[in-house]
């Protein structure tokens, strides 16, 4: 299996190329830009055929053009970040509502003001209710694998929904690492050409997409998306398992569990910060802490069942949120607590807001959090529900 030393962004670009995308419509935004630059380079070097590159005038148009392309039957790809994703927001609804399996890489970046180009999950999590599936990558390998799997899942006949693959600004996007890339023939076997649900080229049987849905029908359209999201859980697990069998990296778990079997305390979070957390878990274990890590790979659909299985066997869960929903709490914390409310699993849960706007979360930070969690569990009582961990006082 060929290996390449690539940045997270190049991993995304290679995956798009290996997925044989047919239309890329994109607008440059830091730190996403090198994804679309690399794809342009593939075209310039003659490394790809039949790839149309549309250098649009805004992210809103990037998504709109992908929607037009996908509705015409093409495999469409784009990438964005932060303000760009926010500008696309309207069209994210459109892509999901029109049941178009577009794949997009979002490079997690904090929202302005103040201007920031660094890592923060608020941009992608703000798109929670658009009907997109969301996959959070921990490292460059997962960016690559995530994009390839995303197309297969998005285009699955039971799903037909768009997928967002999320990577961290700079921590992954611009950091080089070894990435295994299967041979093109193996990928083609895994990911055959798209068989669209519908295409606008059907002149024998013309129809309209997205017409007015009256109260008599709109509701059912929404239900079908809800159902497809539920179906997507099975598809994600199947595709993740197949990916493991073919390429050696198994993604059949929607929550990746790390040393949780006998863990009393589990750190839960998403994306690149979970690499640090795993490192800290190893160190804490050597110091006698019974800790583990639960990396939520798929935020949408939300892996309720897997979370329940985890929660019923642990005493405390520290939810690390590199995001915040103003007026409430960290978004993953909010979602997780909600899932467990009607179950008999009631671990102590505390929300640590960490690393907003790219501030580092170190192994030592995780160790401090572990100590705090242990005290809470020993007392059987939360000191506070939400802690802004890095806050300067």
């Amino acid at each position, binding site marked *: 299996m060929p290996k390449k030393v690539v940045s997270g962004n190049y991993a995304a670009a290679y995956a798009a190329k290996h997925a044989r995308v047919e239309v890329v*419509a994109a607008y440059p935004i830091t730190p996403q830009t090198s994804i679309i630059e690399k794809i342009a380079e593939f075209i310039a070097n003659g490394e790809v055929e039949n790839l149309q590159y549309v250098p649009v005038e805004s992210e809103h148009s990037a998504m*709109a053009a992908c929607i*037009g392309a996908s509705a015409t039957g093409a495999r469409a790809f784009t990438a964005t970040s932060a303000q760009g994703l926010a500008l696309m927001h309207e069209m994210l609804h459109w892509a999901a509502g029109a049941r178009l399996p577009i794949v997009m890489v979002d490079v997690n970046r904090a929202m302005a003001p103040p201007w920031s180009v660094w890592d923060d999950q608020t941009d992608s999590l703000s798109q929670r209710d658009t009907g997109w599936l969301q996959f959070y990558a921990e490292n460059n390998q997962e960016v690559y694998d995530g994009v390839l799997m995303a197309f297969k899942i998005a285009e699955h006949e039971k799903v037909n929904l768009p997928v967002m693959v999320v990577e961290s600004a700079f921590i992954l996007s611009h950091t080089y690492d070894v990435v295994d890339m299967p041979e093109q023939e193996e990928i083609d076997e895994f990911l055959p050409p798209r068989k669209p649900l519908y295409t606008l080229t059907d002149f024998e049987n013309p129809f*309209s997409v997205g017409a007015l849905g009256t109260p008599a029908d709109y509701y059912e359209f929404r239900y079908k998306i809800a159902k497809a999201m539920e179906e997507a859980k099975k598809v994600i697990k199947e595709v993740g398992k197949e990916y493991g069998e073919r390429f050696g990296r198994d993604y059949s778990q929607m929550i990746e569990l790390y040393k949780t079997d006998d863990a009393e305390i589990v750190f839960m979070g998403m994306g690149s910060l979970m690499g640090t957390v795993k490192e800290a878990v190893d160190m804490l274990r050597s110091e006698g802490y019974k800790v583990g890590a639960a990396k939520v790979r798929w935020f949408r659909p939300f892996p309720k069942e897997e979370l329940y299985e985890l929660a019923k066997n642990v005493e405390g869960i520290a939810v690390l949120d590199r995001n915040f929903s103003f007026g409430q709490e960290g978004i993953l914390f909010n979602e997780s607590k909600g899932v467990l409310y009607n179950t008999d699993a009631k671990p102590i849960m505390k929300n640590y807001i960490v690393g907003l706007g790219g501030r580092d979360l170190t192994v030592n930070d995780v160790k401090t959090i572990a100590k705090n969690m242990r005290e809470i569990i020993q007392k059987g009582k939360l000191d506070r529900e939400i802690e802004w961990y890095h806050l300067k006082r």
Partner: protein
Amino acid sequence: MELPADVKKRLTLPFEEHFYAGHTACQGCGASLGLRYVLKAYGGKAIFTIPACCSTIIAGPWPYTALNAPLFHTAFETTGAVISGIEAALKAKGYKVKGEDGIMVVGWAGDGGTADIGLQALSGFLERGHDALYIMYDNEAYMNTGIQRSSSTPYGAWTTNTPGGKRHFIEQRPKKKVIDIVIAHKPAYAATASIAYPEDFMRKLKKAQTIRGPSFIQLFAPCPTGWRSPTDKSIELARLAVQTAYFPLFEYENGKYKINMPSPNKEPKPLEEYLKLQGRFKYMTKEDMEILQEWVLKEWEELKKKAELFG
């Protein structure tokens, strides 16, 4: 269906209908006539994109469609981008785009969705040079949301957010010249057209089919509901708009302007003839009418000059 020979001779437009009965346009709707001509021109081998506008409704609610053509309904400001994406996909997949036997990619948007919220996407579509046609059907206001002014609304017009009345709060700005903005992009082809002159419109549609690169047609399409005009006067109004030089017919190709007859070849008819048939101009004073008349003639002289210099 075969027509009797004598009938066939009289037809100057294709006999086939691709715009079905049962659409939900208002009586006397100019836009629906325009859409019917576009479908006739491309014989059902066009892919349509329609943003939020009257035509969203006219085409019919799910599961109906009045168009014998694939149709993608999209968000208000995205026509230019969606047709770009469709064209790119057709090319990636190896379809023939344009030409007699090729696929026409058509964006069909109102003036609000073009002159206002969709202007950026239109600009992107034009400057990138996509092989598609963008048609702006111009009824000079946001008709689908209940007759609010757009930047294509003319000076002096009543709309629901320029309602006239004691304070004389009618539209105070001249009509935005979208076609000039389009031509500034040096597109392959740009033209104005009117539903009162279907042969001229059809010829322009055929032109857009053969020419490489982006094309744009601004189609004048009266709206009796929004213009407060009798429903049987739409064609007459569209004709008067051309004859008064309020909306002259012309085309732009390879840097050259050409005024199309029946635009006035001598003196344009007085604008008042056109204005008095419409309730939307009822708050205009005599002075307002003079302002608008003057503006129309100035623009007309400017167009003639362009045709003379760049003919």
